[in-house]
Structures are given as structure tokens and as C-alpha cells.
């Protein structure tokens, strides 16, 4: 697979490590009353869809940036790549 890095252009997927579902960006609020349940779901449960999947890839052997890659799990086709930071901001995360 070739990942079209937003800063570096097309890079081979073997330069990256993959962490999994990009929902890991949405860390639950530890002060919430339902925090224990929320963290369990956040850490352990996955949608694991057959089809489009947003996932976190880390450019370990490159510029060490985190990316959000939108990829189809049935075909492995990558349709969108963005910096994780920008994706998180667009989701309303400030840090």
C-alpha cells in the first residue's frame, strides 16, 4: 500500500506502524460519571467495519508524524490522508 503523506507525498506503508481505529483520538473525559465504562469501550471495543475505515498510522521511519488514513478494509484502497492533528482539531479537540 502507498500512503499519500500530506507533507512528504507518496510513501510505502512499510515505513509506518499502524495503531488502529482513529476513534482512539476521542479520549473520554476522565471526570465523567460514566468514565469507567467509557474508557472500557474506548480501549477495548471496535466497530471493525468491512468497508471504509479511518485509522491512525505513525510515520515511524519518516517524519514521525501521526496520520489519519481513510482506507477500505475490503479493497485496501486509500481514499484520504490527513495529519492526525488537523483531523483532531476538525473534531473539536484543542490540544
Amino acid at each position, binding site marked *: 500500500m502507498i500512503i499519500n503523506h500530506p507533507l512528504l507525498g507518496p510513501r510505502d506503508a512499510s515505513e509506518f506502524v499502524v495503531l488502529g481505529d482513529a476513534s482512539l483520538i476521542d479520549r473520554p473525559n476522565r471526570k465523567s460519571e460514566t468514565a469507567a465504562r467509557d474508557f472500557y469501550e474506548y480501549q477495548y471495543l471496535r466497530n*471493525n467495519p468491512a468497508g471504509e475505515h479511518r485509522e491512525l498510522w505513525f510515520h515511524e521511519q519518516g517524519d514521525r508524524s501521526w496520520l489519519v488514513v481513510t482506507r477500505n*478494509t475490503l*479493497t485496501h484502497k486509500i481514499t484520504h490522508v490527513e495529519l492526525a492533528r488537523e483531523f483532531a482539531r476538525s473534531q473539536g479537540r484543542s490540544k
Partner: protein
Amino acid sequence: MRRYSIVVAHKKTSIYPLCSEDKLRYSAFNILKQALTGHNGWKPAWRNPEPKPEYDIIIVGGGGHGLATAHYLASIFNKKNIAVLEKGWIGGGNVGRNTTIIRSNYLLHENEGFYEFSLKLWEDLEQDLNYNAMVSQRGIINLYHSDPQRDAYIRRGNAMMLNGADAVLLDADEVRRKCPFLNFDNARFPIMGGLWQPRGGTVRHDAVAWGYARAADQRGVDIIQNCEVTGFKIENGKCTGVDTSRGFIKAKKIGVSVAGSSSRVMAKASIRLPIESHVLQAFVSEGLKPVIPGVITYGAGHFYVSQSDKGGLVFGGDIDGYNSYAQRGGMPVVQDVCEGGMSVMPMIGKARILRMWGGIVDMSMDGSPIIDKTHIDGLYFNGGWCYGGFKATPASGYSFAHLIATDTPHKTAQAYRFDRFEKGGMIDEKGMGGQPNLH
């Protein structure tokens, strides 16, 4: 080799309640008779029934685990009116795609008792099914390459023996006598010895599906192929049937055992699982004369190899590492596996690869399986087998049948619960944490 007896749940039921007609069908006499009459008299090994409108128990998924579950439900737990629904053909999933290794060399007691139970069931499987599954206890050696790795294997070997399994620690000379072709003097990863389980080995994977199917069919189980489950009927917290590509089928109890499709199927009951689907690749070389005595695993890279009875070297390594339902992997893992092979067994470089393929494995968050009830009454789940569920087939089927029949977990599968993640009771053999692609 030492044989073990099997503890069955209902002592009054013999584990070999075969009818005389069954014994006859694959008898030496019958084979001779068929050979002399042009092999025209063989009958299909199982029926091809139309689905009935209602069953007592439905098993979703006709892989090794689903078929084994049906067999033990009928033979050990005396259940009747059972169907196995398979979306394609039986044996077309991972049971027909794996590298056929069986072993019980786990460290954690939650796992080791279960896998040892499975190995004991393998040892008597062919008598139980009256089917040649080519169970071959040719042994498995896990190589070690450093002092700490040897110490870890000693600990593992002791854990195995505490659970009734066999384990032998080999030094480098003993490994050399068995496998002189290995790369002992690799400067970085010298082979210092291995942990040997003589009772481990390989089994003809397709024959496992066919043998269980035939045995279950003979006890009246309907095996319904080309029947995809597309939904569950859930009323007042109780599952009362399944929608399928061949219409609605009512059932009192439904057990889902669909391996790589676990999340997709359980999503139809609105259940999210602690599972990701990943692709695992396997490779077979051209046929060679016997060169490898048993199964060998490399301790410094992810590579394992055995030799099939047809002579092909069967080998593999890591999962590709990303979510996939594509049943094919990528080149980086091909390279990694081949590098591992060349590093530990340089002679493999002379063999040409004949075939390679991928299968979708249900990677759980701690690398261990789940055999449990769901919060929906009458709906049971079996999955999370990762890349190692073939060896589990008999015990998984037995334990799942136990759970469905008695509503209590089998004693070797008590830890395989959904709630272990929430309660902090992970069964993490490799100590990797809750990330599927690290197991």
C-alpha cells in the same frame, strides 16, 4: 508416547457412540470392495438438506469450530434438532486456509488447560469421528537464542507440565541432531536450544471440517450451505431466530462461530466486540522429499515452518497488522517472512514458493478467545481466535457445546468471558496490552 484419557461431561455417554453402519462405511473391506468396483458406490459424506422452519439450536458458521460444536452438541450433550448455517461452503473459511499446526505450549493457566484439553481431543479425534484427519504428532520445537529466552521457555515448559502437557528442554546439540540444517552459528541470533513439545504436530485441516461435518450429519445435524445469516430476531431481550439468505429460521438457542466475520455478524445484533479483523498470510513451497522432522518456530523473528505430507514446506509469520477483510496481504510481510526463513534455515532459499494466500483472522484485544453468552438471551458467541484457532477446534467446539447445552462454561474455558476486559482480567500471553496487532 503417553496417552491421556478424556474427561467427558456426561459420563454415561460414551465418546464413541458410532452406529454399525458408520463403522462399515470406511472399513478396509468397504475400501477394497469399492476399489474393485470402480469406486462407483461412494455416497456423499453428508446430506444437503433444505432448512427447516425451526430448530432447537442453530450454529452460525460452518468452519471447524461451528461443525465441532454441532458434533459435540449431538454426541456428548445428546441435543437434537440442530442446524449449522454456512454462508458459503463448509471448510471455505480459515479451517481450510491455516497452516495446520496443533500444540498446547501456552504459558498462562487460563489458556494452557484449554489447549491441553484440545490436544487430548485431537489424539482421539479420528476414533471419535471414524475419519482420517491425518493427526500427526511430529512434535514442535520453539527455538531460543539467548539466556533470558531459555529461562522464559523453562518457565513455560513447567506451566505446560503443571497442566498435564509434555515439554522437553533441548540444548543446541539436541536440536542439531534433530534439525542439522538450521543456522546455529548466526552471529546475532545463535540457536542455543529449543522448547520441544513432542505431542504437538499437524492435522489435515480440510479433513477436520469434513470429518466433523460427516459425524454431525450422521447424528441428524442439518448442515445448510449457501445460507448466510443476515440478521437476528430479538424480542424483549431474547433472540428467537435468524434472518438468512434462505428465509427466516426460528430457534431456541443460537451460537455464532464465524471467526474473521465475528464483528460483521454480531453488529447485526448491535453488539460491538473487542475484536479487529486482520489478514494473515501463509506460504507453501514446491513439493520436496522429507527434510523437516516436525514444526519449527524461530525465536528471533516471526517465522514458523513444517512440511506437509505432500512434501511442500508450509510456512508463515506475522499478520499484516492493519484491519482487513480482503483475504490477501501485502509484500512487506512476504519479505519479512522470507527474511525470517533465510535467517534461521538458509536452505529454504533453494525452494520455490508454489502458492501463497491470506485469511481473515479475528484478533482479540488480548490475543485470547471468547466463548460466552451475550447479554441477549439465547444468543451465544465464540470468537477472537486470532491466528491460532485451528489447534483449538475440538476444545472450542466442546466448550461451546457445553455452554449452549448447559448454560455454564466448560471448566477449561471459564476465563474466556466478555467481561474480562472491563474487569481487568486480560489473558495476554505475550504481555503486549490491548492492541490486537501486537499479539
